[in-house]
């Protein structure tokens, strides 16, 4: 499968991971690849079971954990945003519906805007909340633990 995915996306980068086959995908190729992975019968990745955002010093990363319910194989895809300011990525919620809520959560807590998302609002915090709490440089002025 490693070769197949590398041939599908020319810019993909294979990453060593003990548990899963992991690839770093260029941001603009993700939607196209996701569509192929879901629809082509040899991949058939129809179940997105985990969608996480991670904050790194120079970029933000979105991690897609995929599983095929037919073949029972698993795959991890990663997408990096160009920078930390005005971070954005393409939505995959038209492919996997569960992404709709998970992307709103990532937007709420990490501040990655998803293009073409039907309802890009904060999900847990208030609309007027300032900052994105899961970022490493977020300063919480009323942190009870640190008082």
């Amino acid at each position, binding site marked *: 499968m490693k070769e197949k995915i590398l041939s599908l996306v020319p810019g993909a980068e294979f990453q060593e991971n003990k548990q899963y086959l992991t690839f770093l995908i260029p941001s603009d190729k993700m939607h196209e690849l996701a569509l192929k992975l879901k629809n082509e019968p040899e991949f058939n990745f129809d179940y997105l079971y985990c969608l996480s955002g*991670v904050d790194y010093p120079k970029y933000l990363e979105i991690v897609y*954990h995929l599983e095929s*319910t037919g073949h029972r194989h698993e795959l991890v895809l990663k997408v990096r945003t160009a920078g930390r300011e005005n971070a954005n990525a393409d939505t995959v919620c038209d492919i996997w519906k569960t992404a709709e*809520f998970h992307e709103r959560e990532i937007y709420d807590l990490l501040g990655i805007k998803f293009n073409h998302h039907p309802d890009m609002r904060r999900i847990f915090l208030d609309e007027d909340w300032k900052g994105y709490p899961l970022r490493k440089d977020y300063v919480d002025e009323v942190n009870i633990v640190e008082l």
Partner: protein
Amino acid sequence: MKEVINLPVKDIEVEEYHINMGPQHPSTHGVLRLVVSLQGEIVKNLKPHCGYIHRGIEKMCEKDTYPQIIHLTDRLDYLSAHINNHAVCLLVEKALEIDVPERVKYLRTILDELNRIASHQLWWCSFGMDMGGLTCFFYGLRDREHILDIFEESFGSRLLHSYYTPGGLMQDVHPNFQKRVKDFIKYFRKKIKDYDDILTGNIIMQERTRGIGLLSKEEAISYGVTGPSGRGSGFSCDVRKHHPYAMYSKVEFNEILLHEGDTFARYMVRMHEMRESMKIIEQLIDNIPAGDYTAKMKAVIKLPAGEYLQRVEAARGEFGVYVVSDGNKTPYRMKFRSPNFSNLSALDHISREGKIADLVAIGGSLDYIIPDIDR
């Protein structure tokens, strides 16, 4: 005899209006607000508003050590506290390549299943109450009490256990544990028949659940609806079967799959699952091996740098823990894939074009726990 006057019936245009269900509503079982758009009593669409008890647990985890994090996972889905603890323990054990003693694996599996039964009992009794059957509530709580007493005797807590530690258990179980669990199984095998008599076969409950809130298999997969709710739509998603952990690969049990995809199917999956859980416990309870209750662990647990993911089957679906470690004693990033969050995302879809009264039944059959959604 009076003459019946027929008033001319005109087409009445019904304006769409919005109603807030919650944050304080008895059927949401917690603080969740559903903004429902109604036309008459037909639900046109629905927007869930979460976050009333968002505590930022994922952020808190970034400052805590792994044994401390276990205490926070209790506070997600508080009715599957053991199972959530189990996920973090398995993740740490996998990262450090620690093999836990056989006794621990047996006890963890038994406790997980007891936890699942207790959770389904509470779901059953509150679902019955949502349907208007108050007796169910007393039956369910009465039987759940037996499990909580077993828990209390062994480790002192009834709801938020934090009993699992990386490498094993906090302490050994009480000497009475084996006998009491066997007594409970004997007792509950009789009582679960009452559950079927009083609610499952009830015509009012059947009328209110059959064919209501349809979710197809493809939609269940797409929305990531797992657990009993997903299996009621025929989505084979039991982590215990597909990615076995602890003793699940060595015990015999069936993954309950129903294909109707309606509220009643989701109800029946849970009823069958309680029996399957009892079957698992019965296979293990007589053969618990003697030995240590924990493996030898270092005082400070540091995960090697890298990424780890552990999936377990909680009472409401697939619970996942994703950790990015930079080699410190605290995680760099910790993400919880909570089953209720994904299950809730399907609520809008399955309640559309239904009656607002059915929304209570559908919500009950998805069995959401709000702290698990908000985290």
